[in-house]
């Protein structure tokens, strides 16, 4: 699904040049569940923004679904991201002025899906996340765990194939954290490819394999479960 080769991201300001990601090579196949770990400032988030097509690399190649997208324009990246990638954040990033229903519906609007189909998709997702009774609530009226469930729903409602989660459990207690990880695991079992950034070794162990980042360098890969196993599960 994803392959990066010699990928490099450099930030330049007037005084400083910071290498956020250096010569990274990584391959994530369809259906994998990968955890990225590393200390603060090691470049995890930068790597995630590039993988999520929010930013382009300074150098190197990035193949997404077989196409080299490293030179894509913002518009091209947006079009690709819209249909294929869902995001889950530590601080949920729901739009406060929109209800649960509207937040989940939003990506479908951008995908240009017709209203009756949209309604069906959102309703199904609400049921799946056990949020039907809360459909008209605003985000502030929900607990952290509920908000993150809405965020996950929003990330996958358009049947996105890649879920990128940046510390999705960081703002949650362990019960809610476990619940969100469970959701992600279920989605993975359903066929979604998942890349999660986390500080927690426990949650990292839920993944097929763990990638360590240190000062922008990918230092090792620790395979938890064979990819083949995952593929067999399908």
């Amino acid at each position, binding site marked *: 699904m994803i392959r990066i080769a010699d990928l490099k991201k450099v930030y330049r300001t007037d005084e400083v040049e910071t290498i956020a990601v250096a010569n990274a090579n990584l391959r994530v196949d369809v259906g994998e569940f990968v955890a990225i770990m590393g200390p603060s400032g090691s470049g995890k988030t930068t790597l995630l*923004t590039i993988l999520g097509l*929010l930013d382009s690399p300074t150098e190197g190649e990035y193949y997404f679904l077989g196409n080299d997208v490293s030179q894509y324009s913002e518009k091209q990246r*947006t079009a690709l991201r*819209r249909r294929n990638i869902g995001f889950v954040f530590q601080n949920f*990033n729901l*739009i406060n*002025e*929109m209800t649960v229903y509207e937040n989940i519906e*939003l*990506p479908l609007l951008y995908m240009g899906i017709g209203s009756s189909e949209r309604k069906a998709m959102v309703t199904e997702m609400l049921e799946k996340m056990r949020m039907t009774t809360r459909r008209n609530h605003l985000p502030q009226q929900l607990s952290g765990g509920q908000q993150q469930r809405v965020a996950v729903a929003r990330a996958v409602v358009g049947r996105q194939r890649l879920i990128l989660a940046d510390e999705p459990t960081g703002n949650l207690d362990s019960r809610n954290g476990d619940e969100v990880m469970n959701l992600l695991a279920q989605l993975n079992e359903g066929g979604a490819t998942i890349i999660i950034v986390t500080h927690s070794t426990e949650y990292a162990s839920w993944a097929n394999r763990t990638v360590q980042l240190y000062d922008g360098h990918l230092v090792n890969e620790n395979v938890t479960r064979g990819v083949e196993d995952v593929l067999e599960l399908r």
Partner: protein
Amino acid sequence: MFWSYVKTIFRNISSSKVYFFINIAGLAIGFTVFTLIMLFVLNEFNYDTFNRKADRIYRVVETQKAPGTKAQQVAITMGALAPALASGFPEVEDAARYIPWSTVLCRYGDRQFYENGLSFADSSFFQIFTFHFIEGNESAAFDGPYSVVIDKSTARKYFGDADPIGRTLSIQAGLDQNTFQVSGVIQDFPRNSHLHFNMIASMNAVERHSRFFNGWGNNNAVTYVLLKNGYSPEELEKQFPALLRANLPADSWNALEMHLQPLRNIHLYSDQILYQVNYNKGDIDYVRLFVLIALFVIILACINFINLTTARSAIRSREVGIRKLLGSYHSHLVYQFIGESIALSLIGLLLSFPVVEALLPTFNSIMGGRIIIDYNNELSFLLMLILVATIVGLVAGFYPAIYLSSYHPVELLRGRFSSSRRGIILRKILIVLQFSVAIGLVTGTGIVVSQMDYVYSKPLGFDKNDLMYIPLHDAESRNKIGLLGDRLLGNPKILAVSAGERTGAGRTQGPVSVLGTNGRSRLLVRESYVDYGYEKTMGMQIVEGRSFSRNFPSDSASAIINETMRKILGWKDAIGKQIEMDNGRVFSVVGVVKDFNYSSLQHKIDPLVIWLDPGRCPYLLVRVAPQNMQSTIDFAGKTWDYVLPNHPFEYGFVNNHLDNLYGNERQTEHLLALFSTVAILIACLGLFGLTLHTTEQRTKEIGVRKVLGASVGSIVFMLSTESIRLVIIAGLVAWPTVYYLMSRWLQNFEYRTAISAWIFVLSGVVVFLVAMFTLSFQAIRAGLTNPVNALRYE
């Protein structure tokens, strides 16, 4: 998708009500001012357009270059001109003379009134202008020589419900016959007409009385020309010099030029024209000034919108990031935000309608009741407003839209929401601009007020206070000047009585010949006809010689001149010098009166000659004691009724009459004051919003500072310094501009006050204090907050 955007707009409004209120209030105030001014402007440009042939109607304007005065334009021409144009030029479809008459006594049965709306015209007048005849018709209106057409109100006034056609009105116009037959009734004039009369009689009646109105020797009639379709005014104008050469003596050929003024221009573009018929005369400069103010006010409201939206961008930036993350294109977001600002602008417009409705009567009374357009029924006007509101939304929303939508979703992952440096600088520039406009308007108002103070209080050369005038409309009343004077002086509250012009000189000018130090010269002079004791009653000062006196029977051949005339002629000693009138009569100068202003201070003093001729005095002048004025007026009224029982008593006071000469200026004064207040209000609304925002943003900093021991005063100071600096810069920007513009405005006045520095200082201080008050409200509240609350806020 559209409804998603609409929902977002309303949810955003409800989550930041204060900022919404500030934006919407600013816009609503802006649109209110804009709508009111545009109604005024539309009315001004609508003058005379109800005439069906308006595009082909012209008024003849003469440029006179007479010795002794500046070249002047007059809209009064030779009586022979209109007939000559109508008969001898293929370009001309029709031409008509029009003569506004002086006030006349008019009677039907036992109903009698003074009428100051009597005019005479050729019958072709009805073919040129559009009238709505209720009875009679335009082609038969002047079939008889003593026919009169009256308007509906006048018909009702004299005849009640009876049919006026064929009835006879007695009109004491000083002509051969006083009886006029009503031949038509027209609708009352709309206000937006430069012509205004309530009775118009046939020119024949005047011609039968005197050939004076038929010749080339005098200017006494307004000439209107209707050109044939397809002919340009220039083609006709080219032939004017030859026409003048054929009919005027050689010495006038170079002193006269004529041109055609389009009917549509008469109302607004006639400021420099003397002797003109121009009811409710407007001035294009004032129209421009008000349009400028309308734009300023709208811009101020836009600035509030731009500043508050960009300042609070951090709050929306999360939404932008999320939308982009979920697949929104940059352009989608630009449309979304511009759409939001257009929606807000339209809401502002909608809210302004009831305010306009409520303010219109007051505004209209300031504007002299000129606004007659019912804007609710003017679809095009409403569409124009909607268009303007859309443009305002577009302009105000454009920068914030670009600014907000450029927010990068990567920042979402990093959790950074900071204001860019560029945004902050722009905000400062815009605040400076807003306060420059506010300070500029306040300073401008100050200068107008000080000039008008100067105008009202400047010694004119005579005492305008406690001076009553009573119009003498006909020979009968003028014959009683002596008797009236004797009876009035029986009241000790009446200090002096005479007759003459109420401001020292009338509107007429005439040529005289004199032998000056530079040889014999012809001079165009102001004429003033007076009775004995005029200078004393008016409070004028004789600086050389004497005033007219009954002790000198030869005074009917004497004249008094003013200082300006003595100076122009280079006379050291004027007494005994000879002045020859055009008709050959010679007068000798017996006195020189100290220069006085007989008109508004926009005009300089012309050479003036005063003649003794009670038979031509237009007013009885009564100097009264200031105490118990009403009883003195009652006494004068009773005396008048006793001496002239068939003449209704009318009176006025000279100071009021003089004040009325400054109608446009007074309007400007009131409106500038009003709009300055509006400008300050809008600017302060914006400042209030920004301070509120800054204070919110700095809550934590304030808390920390207070924990570390900062006083309330130092917090207030910290929050206010920046804004104070901006207001001071705004003053520095505004003052030179205002100085330049107001110097130009003052050029309109021959006599003007010096622009003094205190006005600038004072206006700066006023705006500064209002701004400080606005700021301190928030700053003090922030300073007084318990730091624990402030820190908990985090």
